């Protein structure tokens, strides 16, 4: 292929929504973040949202870098604080559509308290939590999502702790919309993102994503392809599954689907005019 052809192909349908002057991104080959960010942007595009009023907030970590690549008003804040920052933003201007895009370490470990309280408050925002089972940015340490016996640079002989079942946690805390997909479910993920964006209240989607550089390599799935293959053959779609049963275990099945979808009062409360 000639260089000029590459340049022509280089124009991507999502370029309008990307800070192309910041590409290439920092994510490793085989990482799932590009796939998930792509699905997020396509969903935002299809949603008909006013892009000037669509805001992305990220915390720290590999996933946290997403905010820096989108051509929206976007905030890359402190570790774990994407949710409370986004809460302030949404309360200050309820006309904004706030999308929080961050990782499992950011949201379930250091930001775990904010996660359950944002769900409890039912703050009207869409939250995409990318779970790669470890801290990628710092070199593959275990975290609160690392499956039991899963290896990492701080659990060389296998993790002894029980991980969080994030959908169960967030559902119990009161989120009225909870779903999980893997990066092998691109269409489903995109459709669910679109639903989540239109949902009033705290809509939460966990996406299981490969980290071949660290978690995969240390757990006998050394390439993104192997991790994707694992997701493909080991995922079971079970909408409205009993969330007690969606734990993720090393080498076990991954239950995916839309788990929770109901309505309850959210914040900031909608302004009621003329009694309507």
């Amino acid at each position, binding site marked *: 292929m000639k260089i000029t052809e590459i340049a022509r192909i280089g124009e991507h349908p999502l370029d309008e929504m990307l*800070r192309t002057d910041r590409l290439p991104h920092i994510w490793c080959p085989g990482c799932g973040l590009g796939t998930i960010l792509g699905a997020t942007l396509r969903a935002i595009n299809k949603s008909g949202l006013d892009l000037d009023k669509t805001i992305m907030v990220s915390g720290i970590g590999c996933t946290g870098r997403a*905010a820096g690549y989108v051509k929206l008003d976007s905030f890359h804040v402190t570790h774990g*604080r994407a949710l*409370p*920052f*986004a*809460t*302030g*933003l*949404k309360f200050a201007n309820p006309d904004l559509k706030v999308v929080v895009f961050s990782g499992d370490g950011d949201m379930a470990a250091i930001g775990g308290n904010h996660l359950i309280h944002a769900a409890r408050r039912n703050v009207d925002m869409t939250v995409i939590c990318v779970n790669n089972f470890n801290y990628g940015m710092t070199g593959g340490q275990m975290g609160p999502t690392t499956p039991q016996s899963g290896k990492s640079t701080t659990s060389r002989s296998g993790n002894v702790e029980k991980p969080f079942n994030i959908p169960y946690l967030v559902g119990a805390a009161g989120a009225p919309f909870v779903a999980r997909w893997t990066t092998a479910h691109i269409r489903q993920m995109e459709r669910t993102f679109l639903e989540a964006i239109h949902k009033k209240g705290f809509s939460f989607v966990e996406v299981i994503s490969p980290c071949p550089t660290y978690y995969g390599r240390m757990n006998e799935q050394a390439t993104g392809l192997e991790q994707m293959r694992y997701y493909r053959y080991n995922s079971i779609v079970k909408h409205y599954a009993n969330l007690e049963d969606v734990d993720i275990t090393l080498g076990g099945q991954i239950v995916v689907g839309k788990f929770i979808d109901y309505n309850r009062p959210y914040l900031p409360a909608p302004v009621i005019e003329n009694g309507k």
Partner: protein
Amino acid sequence: MTSENQLPGEYFLSGDEACAEGAIAAGCRFFAGYPITPATEIAETMSERLPEEGGTYVQMEDELGSMAAVLGASWGGLKAMTATSGPGFSLMMENIGLGVMLETPCVVVDMQRAGPSTGLPTMTGQGDMMQARWGSHGPYSIIALSPASPQELFDLTIVAFNLSEKYRVPVLVMSEESIGHMYEKVTIPPKEKIEIIPRRKPNIPAKEYLPYVPDDDMVPPMAIAGEGYRFHVTGLTHDERGYPIMTAEVQGKLVKRLVDKIEKNSSAIIKVEEDSIEGADIVVCSYGISARVATIAVQKARAIGLRVGMLRLITVWPFPLERIREIAKNIKAFVVPEINYGQISLEVERAAAGKAKTILVPHMGGAVHDPETILEAIKQAVI
């Protein structure tokens, strides 16, 4: 108190209530906080008053979240604040640093109590003065004010909002339990008599806007979320586009500006109150409640014929180094009473640069000084 007007008139208010009213008068329309003694009454007042003024009160899960929400609300276009005390102030340090880095206007009130740790929750202290200056990691500069009465808590909370908008930096109101829980007459002036500095908005087309191109005073205009500027901001070291750049060169340029915009504008920021410094042998230098207690000692000293001046720091950070250095040339000693074991006294000593002695009058917290202790220090200083 009821809403609608700016409530001009005379009231009998606690410092905490006066602080909340000052914030509302300054245009604050967002408060995120977590209950903590002795700042709780600020949150309570705000939870009642803000909805009356069309604002929002959110009670967060902790002070980490409170400070993050305050920053978010500021970027959402509202004047925003929180109020806390030592233990919460420690937790807020993380996002105060982010506030400095993103250049986010907001106000943080620290009603100091005696520490360290849980300390004496209901009793006074001034042990957070250095934490105010250096508590978040990395090199930076910040503005901190120290009110000495409920009236001044009202007035300085307004000043704090104005300075935070003008310099795009979190401004700290470093008060104490003694002032927060003190009831005094507070005069709320009519709205038109209150000076409000609005946010500096960009005046160029959205497509040309770069979030960190500073004006001549080193402060960049600030777009807010949802107005079509499509900006990116990050706590990482960033260039004028707001893009992360991992080089020592960009770090040098950014951090120098963040510090210089405060320090090089310090003469416009700093306020002190001086009394009879001309011809004095001794100058008592203090702030907040300790300055009030010290005035009694100063009067007693004068009554026995000692020539004593008084320098009250209203702005503590940036520190009025030049003025103190000037005073030091003509006096024997500074006497510095403060409710800690020596914090601001170290700065006074540094500023005095050996030209005058610096005598700390410490108090470990839980009460204010006995004026006699300060008087004794003044007498010793004369010798």
